[in-house]
């Protein structure tokens, strides 16, 4: 018999396997050769794949570069207003509905202020897709840098400074190289978060097949059009891509890497 103390641990397997694992299995179970043929034969599928990887990689590079700058403030300017605002806002994209993020980007970089860049400003271009991904994934890179800095230790910086380095020199010469793993982890986290982004991308980048469509929006479009089999095939492909990235992150940061950096 299960006592009340065992209840939670006894509930874990059914909850987890029914609601988390089973849907993924269901996806694979519904994979059909015809669906695969449809998706893989569709040039829009390939352009969506290309856009996804290109924009996610660009967003992750931007994310890491920005996070490295943030790390400097974390280390040397923790009392500054800039740091406080940035640190506070790092948690925002996690809590904010990503449709709201997309709308915010659309208002900021759309026609209203950026009319001089084109009819829709930056909106509905691959740049917009990248910026949407950057917006939602940068905080992960910043958190990864923050976590890495806890381990580097201030001693390194202090010694470097007694040897004549200014804070900026010590940061570039000593801290950033010591952060290598954290930066790689941050890149992969930001990349995987970008791969999975749908709402912000569709609001700001649009869902133009062959132009700004990404895998997430491709799946959505196929389902809307009633092409369930192609949607399933694209989804399984997407899942495989995500799993590969997650596996890479785990092998680099140890088990639980994604959650740790997100928490």
């Amino acid at each position, binding site marked *: 018999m299960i006592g009340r103390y065992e209840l939670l641990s006894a509930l874990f397997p059914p909850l987890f396997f029914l609601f988390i694992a089973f849907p993924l299995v269901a996806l694979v179970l519904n994979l059909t050769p015809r669906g695969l043929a449809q998706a893989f034969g569709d040039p829009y599928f390939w352009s969506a794949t290309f856009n996804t990887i290109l924009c996610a990689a660009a967003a992750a590079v931007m994310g890491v570069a920005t996070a490295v700058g943030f790390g400097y403030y974390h280390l040397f300017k923790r009392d500054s207003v800039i740091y406080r605002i940035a640190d506070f806002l790092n948690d925002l994209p996690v809590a904010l509905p990503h449709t709201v993020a997309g709308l915010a980007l659309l208002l900021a970089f759309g026609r209203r202020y950026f009319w001089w860049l084109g009819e829709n400003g930056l909106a509905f271009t691959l740049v917009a897709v990248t910026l949407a991904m950057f917006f939602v994934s940068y905080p992960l890179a910043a958190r990864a840098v923050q976590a890495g800095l806890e381990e580097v*230790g201030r*001693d*390194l910086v*202090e*010694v*470097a*400074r*007694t*040897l*004549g*380095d*200014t804070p900026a*020199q010590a940061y570039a*010469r*000593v801290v950033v*190289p*010591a952060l*290598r793993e954290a930066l790689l982890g941050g890149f992969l986290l930001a990349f995987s978060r970008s791969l999975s982004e749908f709402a912000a991308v569709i609001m700001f980048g649009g869902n133009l097949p062959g132009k700004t469509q990404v895998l997430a929006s491709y799946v959505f479009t196929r389902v809307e059009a009633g092409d369930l089999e192609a949607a399933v095939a694209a989804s399984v492909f997407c899942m495989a891509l995500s799993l590969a990235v997650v596996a890479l992150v785990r092998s680099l940061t140890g088990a639980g890497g994604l959650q740790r950096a997100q928490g």
Partner: protein
Amino acid sequence: MLKVENVHFSYGDRTVLRGVSLDVEPGEVRVILGPNGSGKSTLLRIVAGILRPDRGRVVIDGEDVTDRPPEDRRVGYVPQHPTLFPHLTVKDNITYSLRNGRGDPDQLDELVEMLELGEHLDRRPDELSGGYQSRVALARALFSDPRVLLLDEPLSDVDLAAKRDLVKRFRRALRRSDAPALYVTHDPWEAERVGDSYTVLLDGRSVDADTVDEALERLRRGAPVGEGS
């Protein structure tokens, strides 16, 4: 020479130093003794410029450096656990200060010989034992041609057998440099061999002593009465 004058320091509302003064002549090694948490590391970090005293002054070669950042002080600092740059080889660790125009490349050979680092120059820090990491940390500080040397328990990660030999080497290396040195240790045996003079930190105040025995006696007796400021 180095002068620390009536230095006070608090971490938030935790007061650690309340009137610490000491003088160290060129070439002199002054050993700092004190219980755990008495502020020995804090004092070294104040002299290095990493921490700013709430009151008091730090004077190096007659120049008040209290308001100067660490990079403008030319102090050689060996922190409590030898903190080597993990991505650089031993050689690049030792010669790090060259990037900032400090130190003389010709000095390298002498230091390497004195501390017997020849076989290890191309290794990374994580391939070295604690004793060799300490040697590299000292070599790096000495190489930068410092005006003051600060060593915070440089041999605390070294096993006893290696310590006998290392104390002698460190002593010789410190002699060779004519920078005044502050040397923190908990070990009376090490203190006796390495030090010329002694300062005890107790309850945030400093008391000078000429011998280790005198210093230990001070420590045993506890808080000095009517001394300090």
